[in-house]
């Protein structure tokens, strides 16, 4: 959806981190916040909603340059922890320009991953969007913990379409920026076709 702030000469894009509870969504967003230059980002905001909490911050990724003279501002959103109400998930997806699905690589979370991915498709459909039409990448998180599924197993279960996928350990920061850059490329490419 991206909105242009003509006065600030900025194109604002909303990136949503989605996934099952405790998969590392917040850890991803927090890592990007921690590593971003303070002068290029806003504050991290944790906003209580009626039932859950939304965590977000925005920053200007300098390495992405400008689009027709307008700077890019990415707004990273997630609903942290275990989300109890689907309304919170739907709300955070509103107007998303790109989605990172954070999967938990642990074997005992396989079902939670699949359910969450299905839930993402359902919730997007309710907002009138198809997952296929939104820039989308998958991150296989927690690659550094014990009892993880193989990449092939994860791919077979979660990525039949072959969207860009990344291994990560958000706890250490490994793969976090690679994931965001992967999604950024897709978002920019879509922006280029829209402008």
């Amino acid at each position, binding site marked *: 959806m991206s*909105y*242009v*702030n003509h*006065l600030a*000469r900025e194109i604002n894009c909303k990136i949503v981190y989605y996934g099952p509870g405790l998969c590392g969504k917040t850890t991803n967003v927090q890592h990007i916040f921690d590593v971003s230059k303070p002068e290029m980002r806003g504050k991290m905001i944790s906003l209580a909603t009626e039932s859950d909490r*939304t965590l977000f911050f925005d920053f200007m990724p300098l390495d992405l340059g400008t689009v027709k003279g307008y700077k890019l501002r990415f707004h990273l959103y997630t609903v942290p922890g275990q989300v109890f109400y689907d309304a919170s998930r739907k709300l955070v997806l*509103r*107007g998303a320009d790109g989605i990172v699905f954070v999967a938990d690589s642990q074997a005992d979370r396989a079902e939670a991953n699949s359910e969450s991915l299905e839930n993402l498709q359902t919730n997007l459909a309710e907002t009138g969007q198809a997952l296929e039409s939104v820039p989308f990448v998958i991150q296989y998180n927690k690659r550094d913990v014990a009892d993880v599924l193989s990449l092939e197993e994860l791919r077979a279960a979660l990525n039949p379409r072959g969207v860009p996928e990344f291994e990560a350990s958000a706890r250490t920061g490994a793969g976090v920026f690679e994931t965001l850059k992967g999604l950024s490329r897709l978002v920019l490419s879509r922006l280029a076709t829209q402008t």
Partner: protein
Amino acid sequence: MSDTDAFIVLPADPMRLAAAVQMVATEDPKRTAWLRAGAEQSRSAEPTDPGAARRFQTVLELAFLVASADGLATAERASLSLLLESMIDGALDHATLELHFADLDSAVAMFGRHERLARAASDVSPDACEDALGLATIVALGDGKLSRPELDALVELGSHLGVNEDRVRDIARGFAARVQERLR
């Protein structure tokens, strides 16, 4: 929403009311100066003082979010634009402000009103909290009332800025009293 549900109602002829609100809005030369400087910086593609531009855009967004909390009809939008133009001494024209309002509408649609309020409030420096609340109040009073949704938005903004509800109400009443003085 009827006027009787509003927190503050300033009954007056619209022309007189607009003039009174404008007088209150521009009575502090220091505030008018920094608003104008911020607006001028915002006009420039390469602002020499990006901080001033950002500060102006922040209070502008906050004022818009409060004033539009109960919806913003086309006529209200036009008077809001006129009021802001007077506050910045014409540093931004009507068309630029109208376009900016449309952009802010898009931001609300995409991110949510509560989220934008929290985000913009996070850019307000601790020494400018009451000023930001005051400006938002003046702009919201532009149509002669401070409705309940507008007051709720002001209180919500106050909570982000560390200003309690009683103080927010006092600020609102204070500005309303000043407009009423100008109406006499």
